C-alpha cells in the first residue's frame, strides 16, 4: 500500500522514538511494524531524513551496527519529540474526522 502523502515524516519520527536507527533500519522498522502493509521507498525516505535533519528534528551520528558494520544512525532530538507530539494529536484528529465521515462500510448500511 502506498503511503498517504505527508505521513512519511511522522512515521519516521515515531519509529525513531524507540531509539536510533540507520536509514535502511528505519524503512525496515516501518514495514515490519505495519505488518508489511506500508511500502517504504528508500528513494523517498532518504531525502525525508535529510529534510528532517535540516529542520533539526533528528540528528545523525556514525556508529557501528550489531554486525560490526559502520552506518549513520539517526536519533530523535528534543524538538523532534515535541514535533512528534504535535503530529500525533493532529493525526488522531484527522483519523477521528475521517472515521466520522466514512462511518461503516456501504454494504452494512443497506442491510
Amino acid at each position, binding site marked *: 500500500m502506498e503511503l498517504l502523502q505527508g505521513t512519511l515524516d511522522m512515521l519516521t519520527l515515531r519509529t525513531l522514538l524507540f531509539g536510533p536507527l*540507520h536509514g*535502511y533500519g528505519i524503512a525496515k522498522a516501518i514495514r515490519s511494524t505495519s505488518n508489511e502493509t506500508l511500502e517504504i521507498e*528508500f*528513494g523517498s525516505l532518504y531525502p525525508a531524513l535529510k529534510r528532517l535533519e535540516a529542520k533539526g528534528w533528528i540528528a545523525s551520528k556514525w556508529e557501528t551496527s550489531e554486525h560490526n558494520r*559502520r*552506518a*549513520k544512525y539517526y536519533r530523535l532530538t528534543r524538538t523532534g519529540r515535541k514535533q512528534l507530539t504535535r503530529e500525533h494529536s493532529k493525526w488522531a484528529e484527522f483519523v477521528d474526522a475521517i472515521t466520522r465521515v466514512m462511518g461503516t462500510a456501504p454494504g452494512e448500511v443497506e442491510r
Partner: protein
Amino acid sequence: MIWRRLKHLFLSRRRAEERDMQEELDALVQIADERELGNLTLAAENARETWQWTSLDAVVADVHYAFRGLRKNPGFAAVAIATLAVGIGANTAIFSVVNSLFLRPLPVQDAYRLVVLAPRERGSSEFHDLSYPDYRDYRAHARAFSDMLGFAVGMDGIAVDQGPHQVLTSYVTGNYFSMLGVRPALGRLIEPAEAETPGAAPVLVLGYTCWQRQFNSDPGVIGKSARLNGHAVTIVGVAPEQFHGTFSLAETDAYLPAGMLAIEDSSFWTARGKGELRAIARLKPGMSLKQGRASLQVIARSLAEQYPETNKYTSMEAYPEWRARPQPDSAGSWPAMVGIFLTLAFIVLLVACVNLASILRARGNARESEMAVRSALGAARGRLVRQLLTENVLLAIVGGAAGILLSTWISMVLSSICTPIDLPMVQLDFRPDWRVFAYAFGVALLAGLMVGLGPMRSAWRSNLSIVLHEGGRALSGSRRRNRARNVLVVTQVAASMVLLIAAGLLVRSLEEAQRMNLGFDPHHVLNLRMDVHQIGYDEARGRNFYGELLARARALPGVESAAFVFSVPFFHDRFLSTVHIEGRPLSQGEAPSEVSYNVIDPALLQTLRIPILRGRGFNEADNETAPRVAIVSQAMAERLWPGQDPVGKRFRITKPANPLLEVVGVARNTKFVRPTPEAEPYFYVPLSQNYTAPMTLQVRSSRPAKALEREVLHEIRALAPDLPLYDVRTMEESLGGTMGFFLFRVGADLAAGLGILALFLTTVGVYGVISYAASQRTHEIGLRMALGATGQDILRMVLGQGLRLIGTGVLIGLGIALAVSRAVSSLLVGVSASDPMTYTSVAVLLGGFALVAGYMPARRATRVDVMVALRHE
C-alpha cells in the same frame, strides 16, 4: 537553525556533506541489498534538493556548475566571452562618452538641484547671457531658489614672472564658491566683497591643474602678484583638485572676481541687455524645476515692463545643469544625438548576441540530451531552466567584465580623436564611474537574457520522447529548430542592415559636407589668432599694432594678401545680432530677424576670394569718422530686401537706438558659420569702425605653411614679444575643427566603426549558421547525391536556403531603416535620410558579405564523400 541552513552555502562544507552522503549510502549498500534500496542516484539527487532549498544556495550551486561547464569547454567560452565583450564593450564605450559629457554631475554640493538660466530674445534661435543688473534682480527676487551665482568665461593672457600665456578664465560672482560648497586646496577663494564691489583689489584663484602644470604645484605662488591682460592681480588661492569650474567643456585655469569685467567698461555694473554672465541657481528643497522656471518668468515679465528698452523681448527658460552642457542651447539636441548612438551600439550588441545564440543552439543540441536525462531522473523543469539562466548570466557577466576592459581601451582611443583642436585645454574624462559600471552590468544582463532565451525555452518545453528517439540528431532538422535558426539569421541581417544604413548616411553626409562649395577658397591660407588685449593693449595701441603687422605680413616674400578677421569660417566664436531695417518698424508681436556677422579687414574678401557681386568692398576711406558701412551676403539681401537693390539701404544691429549701417556691397554667399546646404544670411562690418581685440590674421601664400609661419611669427615677436598666439594652422586644418567637420567626422567614424563591427559579426554568424545547417544535413546530402543529385544541385539547395534568409533579412532591414531613418536626419547634411544610393550600396555590401559567408560552407557540402555521408551519424 539559520546557521544550519547557511552552512551549506560554503562550498567546502557542501563537499564534506556530499562525501558524507556517498559514504552513508555506500555503508547502507553493505548492510542491505542494493535492489531493496532502489534508485540511489535519485535518492541522492532528491536529498541534494533538500539542502539546496534556499534560493541563494541554489544559485551558488548553479554558478559552481556553470563555471565547471565553461572550464570544460575553453574554446566555446573564449568565443562566447569575446563576442559578448565586443558587444558590451562598444555599448559601454559610447555610454562612458555620454556619461562624461552629460551625465556626470558637477563635483559640488547637491549638484542635481542646480539649474541654468537661459534667457532668449524673441525671434532668436540662441540663448544669451545676463547683464549684471539683470542677474542681481533675478538673484534677489527668484523665490524658488536658495541662491544664484553668475560667471563669465573668457580667454585671457596671464603673466607671472615671465611673458603671458593664454588661459581659460571664469569671472565669478562673490557667492560662486560658497553656493557650490567648494573649499580651497590652498590659500583662500574669492570672497563676496571682492567680487562685486567696484574698485576692490583684484585677486586670482588658480585652477588645480593650472597650478600643477604652470606652477609645478608650488605653494609659494600664494601672495604673488601676476598680470592679467596687463592688470595687476594677486594670487590668493588654488581651487580643489576635483573641481573644474562650471564651464563643462574645459577646466577653468583661473577664477577672477566678476568685478574685473568692469575695469575697462564700468557700464558692466549698470547696463542692462548686455550678455555678460551665465547664471546658475540652486532650487530650494521641495521646489520643482517647473516652479523654479515659473518664478524666473515672473521676474522676466516685470523686468520687461520696467525696462522695455532692453528687456522687452527677453523670455526666460531654465534647464537642469546637466542638460545645459555646454550651452543651454544643447538641451534640446543632445538627447536625440545620444539616443541615436546608443541605439547604434545596441544593434551591435544584438548582432553579437544572435551569434552567441547560434553557437549555444548548436551546443544546445548536445545538451538537450543532458537535460532530457536529468529531467527523466526527476529534476524539476524550473530547476533546469534556472541552471541554464545561471550559465548565461555568468557568461554575460564575464563577457561584461571583458567588455568594460575593452571599453576603457576604446574610450582612450576615442578621447584621443575627440580632443578638438580649437580649444587645446578641453578635457574629456572618459574614466568609468559607477554609472558606467551599472550601465555595463545592465547591458550584460540583458545580453545574457537575450542569448539564453532560446535554450531556456526549449529546456522548458523539452520533449523527452523526441530527444531520446532522435538521439540528439535531427535527420533533416525538425521544423521548430529550423524556424528558430531562420529567425536568428534574419534578425541579424536586418539589424546589421539598419546599423550599416545609418553609418552609410553619416559617412555620405561627411563627404557631402566636405565637398560642399563653401563660397570661399580655403587653400593656401595660414591662420594665426591673437588677442592684444591679453598684453594690456588699449584700442589705440591695438589698432596701431594690427595695422603695422598687416603691413609687415604683406611685405613678406610670396605673400599674396593678408587680412584680419574676427571669426574664421567655422570658428567657435561669432557675432549674432538682431537686425532692424531703417524705415520698417516691427509690427506688434513681430520678432526682428537675427543674422550672424563678422568684423573684417578690407582685404579679407580678397584673401578668401569671396567676390563682390554688386556695389563695392570696404576701403581705407571707411574709417572711424566716415559713415558706418556693411557688406551683406546675397542671402541676407534676398531675405531683408526681396526684389530690391540692397546697395544704399540702411539697417541697425541689436537695438533700434544703435547707429545706422549703410549697405555698400553684396558679397557672394559663403558657409561661414557651419557647413549647411542652405546659405545663411550674413554680413560684414569693417574692423576700422568696429574695433575688437581678438583677431585672426589670415595670410594667403602659395609658399609652404611651415616656412611662412616662422616668418610671420618672427614679425609678431619683433612687434610684441609677449603676445600669446594660438590656433596657428592652415585654413584647411581649421575647417576640420569642432564647429566644422569635426562633429561630422566623429559621428561618421563612430557609426562606421560600429557598422564594420556588425558587418564582421554578421558575416561570422551567417557562416556559422550555414555550415552548421549543412553539417546537420550531411546524411541527407549523401542520400541525395547517391540518388543522383549533382554538386550543382546541392550547392543550389544549401546556398538557396541561405540566400532566402539573407534576402529576407536585407528586405526587412531596408524597411525598418526607411521607417526610422528620419531620426538621424538632424545629423545629416546634403543627403536625404532615405538616400537611395546609400540604401542600395549597403544592401549590396551586406548581401555580398553574407553571400560569400554562405558560399564557403555550401561549396564544402558539395564535396561530401557519398559513402562517408551515408554512414554519418
